[in-house]
């Protein structure tokens, strides 16, 4: 009975962190801050759920703890890989904008689905061609 009570408490702990992480993924403004929130779901949230499950079903506790160990080892690596891809993509975009001597908020540029450097360059040129007449800045000269 005490074991089941402890298991339910661990389940509620994991569920709380899952809810907080999903809320952070919805509400956070930036990709890297969103990664901070979703990393908590993988470690604290899922590991809490797995500890609760191991306490509630002692027959399968060895498998559940093996799964927990695997998730605890691999999910920070996956989060780090996503963070590295975000950083590398921002680097490429900043390089491309520096070639044009323009101050652009790189994180706000929408190039979803664009992978390689030449494709990013094509898309940015197309976006600037469409945005240039509506902005009407001092650099816009029609020729």
């Amino acid at each position, binding site marked *: *009975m005490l074991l*089941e009570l402890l*298991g*339910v408490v661990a*389940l*509620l702990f*994991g*569920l709380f962190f*899952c*809810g907080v*992480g*999903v*809320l952070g*993924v*919805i509400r956070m403004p930036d*990709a890297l801050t*969103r*990664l901070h929130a*979703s990393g908590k*779901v*993988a470690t604290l*949230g*899922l590991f809490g*759920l*797995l500890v609760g*499950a191991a306490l*509630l*079903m002692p*027959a*399968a506790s060895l*498998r*559940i703890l*093996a*799964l927990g160990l*695997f*998730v605890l080892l*691999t*999910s920070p*690596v*996956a*989060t780090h*890989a*996503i963070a*590295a*891809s*975000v950083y*590398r*993509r921002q680097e490429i975009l900043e390089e491309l904008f520096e070639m044009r001597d323009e101050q652009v908020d790189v994180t706000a540029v*929408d*190039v*979803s*689905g*664009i*992978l*390689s*450097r030449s494709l990013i360059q094509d898309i940015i040129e197309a976006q600037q061609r469409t945005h240039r007449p509506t902005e009407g800045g001092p650099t816009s000269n029609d020729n």
Partner: protein
Amino acid sequence: MIESEFAQVAIKLVLLALVSLLIPASYRVIVGTTLPDRLQAVDLITTLLIGIIVMLALVEGTQGFVDMAIALAAFAFVGTISIARYISEGRAF
């Protein structure tokens, strides 16, 4: 199987809450402005799915679901790593 009524009701409520958390997570997949955002939301969804499968193992009382969760965790790790490399370097391996 779990004998006490209290633990069974709690497990079912946690399962229901986890399934309902899938809806806001898939909102970020659909809306998310850039490609790494979508990848991150898919990773979050697979993490939630592992929790849902373990909760299903508790509800049904069968241990076989845990093996499914282990397989899902392994494939999700490989998939996330390869897509992240594809975004940053233009090729997967």
